[in-house]
Structures are given as C-alpha cells and as structure tokens.
C-alpha cells in the first residue's frame, strides 16, 4: 500500500462497496439483507463517510472505486447529491451503481449523464426469463428491470448485470446469457448465492453441480467472447483457466487486501457477504479497523487457509470464497465448501 504512483492502475485501486441505505422496494428471496426499515443517514453523515474514504485513499496514495448500493439506491433522497460530491473527488476514479433497475426512468438517466466517473450501472437479473426472474424478485419486476436496462442503453451507459445462481434459477443460465446479448448488456457476472444473513437457509448447490454450471458458463464465455464479456475473476473460476498466464479467468479475492464494505449505519464488513462486523467507520474509523482487525489479518496470511485451499496449486488465483466458507462452516478460514478440486498433498 505504500504505493508511490500517482496514476491509476489496478495495483493502486481500493474498492468500497457502500450500502448507503437499506430501504428497498423489493423483497428478493435470496437477499442477504434482513432489515428493510428505512434507514439512510442524513446527507452530512454520508459526506462524513465519503471524507473518511478520501482521507484513507490520500494516506495510502490509492484511488477509490466505489459501488453505491443498498437496498435500492434509486430510493435514496441523497443519491444525486452524493454523486455530485464523489464525482468531484480526485481520489475517486470510478463509481458504479448497483440497482434492481425497476425505478429507472428518463429523468433519472438524464441526471446521471453528468457524472464523468459513473462508468458502470449494474442491474441485477436473476433469470433470463420473466417467470424465473420474478420467482426470486417478485411479480412484474423482470419487465421493469428490462425497461430500466433499455433506457440506460438508450443513454449510452455501460450496463452490467449480476445473476446470482440459486436452485431456483440454475437452469435459466443460458437464457440469461442470450438475453444479455440481445439487450446489449456490456458485461455479465454469474456468481453463487452466499447463504448469509436473511438468506442463511437458502439451499446450497452441491460442489459437483457448481462445477458443471461453471464449466458450462466458461464454455459459453469462450464461444461468445465477441458478443459479450462474461466476468470470471472471483474464486473457483481459476480451476477452469487454461494455463497460469490466463488472467481473464480466476482471481484472488481482494478481501483483506483492497476492499471494504460499508453498511448504511457505518458498520464495516470485510465483504458484504462475509457478515462479521469489524468496526464502524464513525466510531473506529477506517485506519483502526483496517490495521487492527484480527479477521483481516487472518485472511491476509494465505498460510492460514485450511483444508484443500491450504496446499492448492491455484491458491494465488483463487483462495476460495471466505464468505461462502464462513456461511457454511462458521469458519472464515475453512476451505471453500463448494470447490470441486481434489485435495493436493
């Protein structure tokens, strides 16, 4: 982190996933969030958080990528004022909004156009067909999300989509990929559900099945690479990379190294899905949390990883998902329970 470069590059970027409100117009069945009681800090408090982020970036000589999310960010009364503020900051290099897409209209798109650093809007789709998406996200919400995506594309935004793989939608993956191509979505990600928080009882997909699903997605990604970019840089994908120079497939999770999640009341988590509070941005601050959290230090030392992950040849490009490990075993250092690799000695 004592990086002396002043130009942006992937080595000097830090990612903040900021769930700046928890209010939402939907109640998706897989959502980790359990509490949707309206909670959004007053604008001055949001600016206090933003300033703490900028202070940390300045100190570390890093640039910040921020995802503004919730809850549903387009329900916030402060979203545009917050964007005004963040967009002006030299230390912030990229802003994304993660949304369910159902509230986007022309007026919103026009307002969003002025933000130079808003370089991606992610709309969640949990199905490639109406009935599958709506089974998770509620009736009528597929059409609304697609309308939202079309509007964003009309205004030339870069649009991505996240498909969270569950038992409900695992057979709709090809439809989702076709839909994404048809709707000119720029990037898509398909990632397994983490059974945490409110979704702790979500049926987990077996490692054999995850293997089959990931393999199919990987084949599609290669076959369709001229039509759509399918992101495969989170844990487990490394098992499918062709060789160690393949940097499109696989990636060590940045938890503990270059990312933090901030909840609507300032609680800090290593990652939104690794639901172990490590501090609060108001009372502890970023530095104290980042430097003194035992959990973060445990995760930073790859030698601490247990089971199959410990000796794995793919560890530098994977490391397993610490959130899935914690959700399923109560041990954030355990091997990733959904990994299909044989143990290596």
């Amino acid at each position, binding site marked *: 982190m004592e990086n002396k470069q002043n130009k942006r590059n992937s080595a000097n970027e830090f990612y903040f996933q900021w769930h700046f409100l928890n209010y939402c117009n939907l109640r998706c069945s897989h959502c980790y969030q359990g509490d949707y009681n309206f909670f959004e800090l007053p604008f001055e408090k949001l600016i206090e958080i933003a300033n703490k982020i900028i202070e940390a970036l300045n*100190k570390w000589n890093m640039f910040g990528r921020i995802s503004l999310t919730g809850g549903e960010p387009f329900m916030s009364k402060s979203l545009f004022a917050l964007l005004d503020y963040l967009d002006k900051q030299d230390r912030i290099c990229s802003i994304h909004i993660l949304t369910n897409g159902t509230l986007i209209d022309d007026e919103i798109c026009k307002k969003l156009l002025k933000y130079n650093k808003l370089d991606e809007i992610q709309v969640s789709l949990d199905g490639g067909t109406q009935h599958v998406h709506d089974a998770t996200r509620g009736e009528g919400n597929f059409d609304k999300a697609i309308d939202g995506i079309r509007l964003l594309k009309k205004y030339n935004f870069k649009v991505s989509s996240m498909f969270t793989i569950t038992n409900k939608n695992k057979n709709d993956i090809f439809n989702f990929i076709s839909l994404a191509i048809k709707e000119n979505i720029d990037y898509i990600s398909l990632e397994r559900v983490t059974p945490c928080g409110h979704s702790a009882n979500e049926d987990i997909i077996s490692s054999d099945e995850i293997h089959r699903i990931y393999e199919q997605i990987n084949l599609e990604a290669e076959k369709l690479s001229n039509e759509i970019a399918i992101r495969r840089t989170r844990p487990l994908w490394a098992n499918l990379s062709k060789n160690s120079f393949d940097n499109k497939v696989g990636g060590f999770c940045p938890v503990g190294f270059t990312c933090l999640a901030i909840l609507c009341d300032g609680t800090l988590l290593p990652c939104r899905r690794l639901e172990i509070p490590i501090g609060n941005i108001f009372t502890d601050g970023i530095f104290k949390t980042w*430097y*003194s959290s035992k959990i973060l230090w445990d995760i930073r030392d790859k*030698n601490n990883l247990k089971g199959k992950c410990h000796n794995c040849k793919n560890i530098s490009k994977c490391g397993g998902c610490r959130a899935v490990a914690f959700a399923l075993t109560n041990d954030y250092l355990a091997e990733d329970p959904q990994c299909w690799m044989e143990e290596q000695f």
Partner: protein
Amino acid sequence: MLDGRTILKLNDDVILKSVNNSFRALNVNDGNQYRLNLVSFKMLENADGKRNIDDIVNELTKIFDVEKTTLKDDILLFYSEALQKKIIFLVEIDENN
C-alpha cells in the same frame, strides 16, 4: 539526545504486524504505515517503556549476529527517526526515585 539509558515506549496508536516475512508499523490514528525489516521490527517490539536502550541492545545481540557497538549505533539512529515520526515516545524517568 538518546543514549544507552534512555527508555522509549511504542506509541499506543501503533500496531506492529508481521505477515509472510513482511514487517510493518501501523498507526491506527493518523493512518501512517511504515515498512520495516526484521531488525527494526524487533527494535520497536522491545520499546516497552521499561527497559533502556542498553538493555535492548543486550537483548538483540542474543538474536542477531552483530557487534554490540554496531547495533547500538544502528538502534540510536533508528530510534531517533522513529521518535520524530511519533512511532515511539520518550519515557520520563523520575530522577529522585
């Protein structure tokens, strides 16, 4: 001026961390972080507010293969830099005790 009788203490806001042969001092208050080597890490670790610099030099010569005089020169230089950076503080000794 520091000498062998000086007693120093690590700033309460500073955490010392070693992971995978990388050594750091991290200030949780102002966010400053300093890269260290094993020797400077041990020098800070020993700044416990109780033992003086001569005691620490004796201790460290048991671990590192180095002449006492050389180590003392190094430690005095390093501690004065660390003092300036507020990584450590001088402990006042009540001369009447």
